[in-house]
């Protein structure tokens, strides 16, 4: 780490950057407060904490921009155990989250094409293509991504990441740490937990060497506690969708999800979600929903269609349909009580074995049925994501079971989370219109 790099980092992130972002946030907050009337016909005004979310995400990418030369950087998969990294002050970049930003900002298609021109198949997950295309073209909507010093790939979401991260390791010439998580058909056998724990333990010396410091167990405990606190708050946030009307939609959750994924283990993340929960509770107290007139409630399965979040949100809101819950955003909430700061490595091994994508399709069906009851939804939207095979597999029979066993209609929407070329607006709109007519709205 160079002195010049550190100076640049200090000035760019902590002095000028923070001040600029803070100013920007205050301006947005002022604008929100002074806006006499929120004009959207169907949606209530956005949460007051929204400008803080923007500030957090911008600060994250700003830190990344100046990180090289000042801090060590790891590129990690969304389900990677990052508590050890955070405790070692290694800065994480999530190519999947960056991919989502590219999806929302509509630059993903260009990067996907770039990757395809370099020979990557269009059948490859569009997050991988977005990431590889962004690296090869040097383009990103977030300014600049730092080069990784290490890569951490955890296979608890899919096998794609294994090959994708090998490509990254080859490209950047940096070490790749793989945490292999055996697939769970039922409860995790103790040998599987031990197997994952061993791998996490084995990664510690590698990461210590890269970080240039040794792991403090006290710090690891604190980080794990903060992770748990944030996940617990997130759980209560998503569960507020149970209220009628729901103060939050899954579309809001998709956006507010960023800190729980990328910034777990930090005090500011816990504070942020605590404020968000307070605000939601106030809204609930006032009987204020995310929609001005909530008539029907739906559950969402799978990743969002990032480039159409707004479009779909408006289409549903117009008809008074609130998407009150999603299996996707629930994934970062449902494991909160497994996190134990007193046993950071053991509980870490358990938690990272149990994501919904590392368990059988039967488990997902049960989760959906539970959510249908808990959130009292009238129907389910199953996004069949062309890119994400592990999330989409089994949706056809699941759709049938949901209608025959859980008694709610379910609609399959064929799309992709990041590649607009696998999305046909007319077809999706037609199916949604028909589905909403069946629901009686």
């Amino acid at each position, binding site marked *: 780490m160079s002195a010049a790099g550190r100076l640049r980092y200090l000035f760019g992130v902590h002095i000028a950057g923070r001040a600029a972002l803070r100013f920007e946030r205050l301006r947005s907050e002022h604008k929100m407060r002074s806006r006499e009337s929120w004009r959207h016909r169907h949606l209530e005004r956005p949460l007051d904490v929204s400008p803080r979310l923007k500030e957090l995400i911008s600060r994250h990418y700003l830190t990344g921009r100046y990180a090289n030369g000042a801090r060590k950087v790891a590129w990690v998969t969304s389900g990677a155990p990052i508590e050890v990294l955070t405790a070692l002050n290694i800065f994480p970049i999530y190519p999947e989250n960056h991919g989502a930003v590219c999806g929302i900002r509509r630059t993903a298609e260009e990067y996907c094409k770039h990757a395809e021109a370099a020979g990557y198949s269009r059948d490859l997950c569009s997050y991988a293509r977005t990431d590889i295309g962004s690296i090869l073209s040097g383009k990103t909507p977030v300014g600049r991504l730092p080069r990784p010093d290490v890569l951490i790939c955890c296979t608890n979401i899919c096998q794609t990441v294994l090959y994708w991260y090998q490509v990254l390791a080859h490209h950047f010439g940096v070490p790749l740490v793989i945490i292999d998580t055996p697939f769970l058909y039922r409860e995790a056998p103790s040998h599987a937990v031990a197997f994952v724990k061993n791998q996490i333990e084995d990664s510690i010396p590698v990461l210590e060497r890269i970080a240039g410091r040794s792991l403090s167990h006290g710090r690891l405990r604190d980080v794990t506690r903060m992770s748990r606190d944030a996940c617990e708050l997130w759980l209560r946030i998503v569960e507020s969708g149970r209220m009628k009307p729901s103060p939050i939609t899954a579309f809001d959750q998709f956006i507010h999800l960023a800190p729980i994924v990328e910034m777990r283990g930090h005090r500011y993340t816990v504070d942020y979600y605590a404020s968000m929960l307070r605000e939601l509770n106030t809204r609930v107290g006032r009987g204020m929903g995310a929609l001005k007139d909530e008539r029907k409630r739906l559950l969402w399965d799978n990743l969002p269609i990032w480039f159409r979040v707004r479009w779909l949100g408006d289409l549903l809101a117009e008809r008074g349909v609130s998407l009150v819950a999603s299996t996707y955003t629930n994934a970062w909430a449902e494991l909160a009580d497994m996190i134990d700061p007193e046993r950071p490595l053991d509980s870490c091994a358990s938690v990272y074995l149990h994501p919904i994508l590392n368990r059988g399709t039967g488990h997902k069906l049960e989760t959906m049925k539970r959510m249908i009851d808990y959130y009292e939804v009238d129907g389910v939207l199953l996004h069949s994501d062309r890119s994400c095979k592990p999330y989409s597999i089994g949706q056809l029979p699941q759709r049938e079971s949901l209608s025959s066993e859980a008694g709610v209609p379910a609609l*399959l929407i*064929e799309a992709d989370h990041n590649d607009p070329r696998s999305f046909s607006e007319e077809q999706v709109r*037609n199916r949604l219109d028909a589905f909403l007519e*069946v629901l009686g709205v």
Partner: protein
Amino acid sequence: MIEAGALGLDAGSTTVKLVAVDEAGTMVWHRVEETEPDLTSQVEELLESTRKLLHRVDELPLIATGYGRGLVKQAGRKVTEITCHARGAYQWSGGGGTLIDIGGQDTKAMIMDRSGAVTNFVMNDKCAAGTGRFLEVCARRLRLSLDELSSTALSTETEVSISSTCTVFAESEIISLIAGGHPVPEIVRGLHRALLGRVGSLARGAGLRPPVMLSGGVAQSRAVRMLLAEELQCEVKSFSEPQLTGAYGAALLGLA
């Protein structure tokens, strides 16, 4: 001049259908045209031509359905084909069951309860496999009309197995089968089998419930009705004007 109570317009991807019903819900007039690229002008002209035939056309409620419904600015309401087909079929059949509509771009299976309400529906996935377009493309490749396609399929008991339900690949498969010396009737029967196998699994996926009714232009084909009955192992009923089911249902919705 005909006295009508409401109009239903089904702007499909292959044909445009306009139906007028009287206050009692009986179809009193209809017209079918091939869909033209400029649908907006086509609809305008179509409505204009009804002025000479129907009383108070401008005062009649007009409900639009079908793919082009968004372009029918004269319509008071726009409703999807699912609701309209089910409404039309219910009026004709008087009960529930499974309604299958093999359309030009979409194939749909709808499950209706005894009161005619749709409780579940499934549509084919994005591509044209399993839709009416598949038969159209095959007919064109074999230089047969759609009627001839049906009689050709029924002129034999044996069939070639066609592996592809992809509309594009089926075309090349036909060419190689002909080149391989297979008789055309066997190929045609095989094509029906491939299409209806797919339609059948769609209907089963929706939760098939007898009786099965078939709507849409393709329902006029006897081969489709017979082979679908074989596929689903139950009777398949149709209506006298199956291609008008959607437009008829739309008009009925206008009466409500």
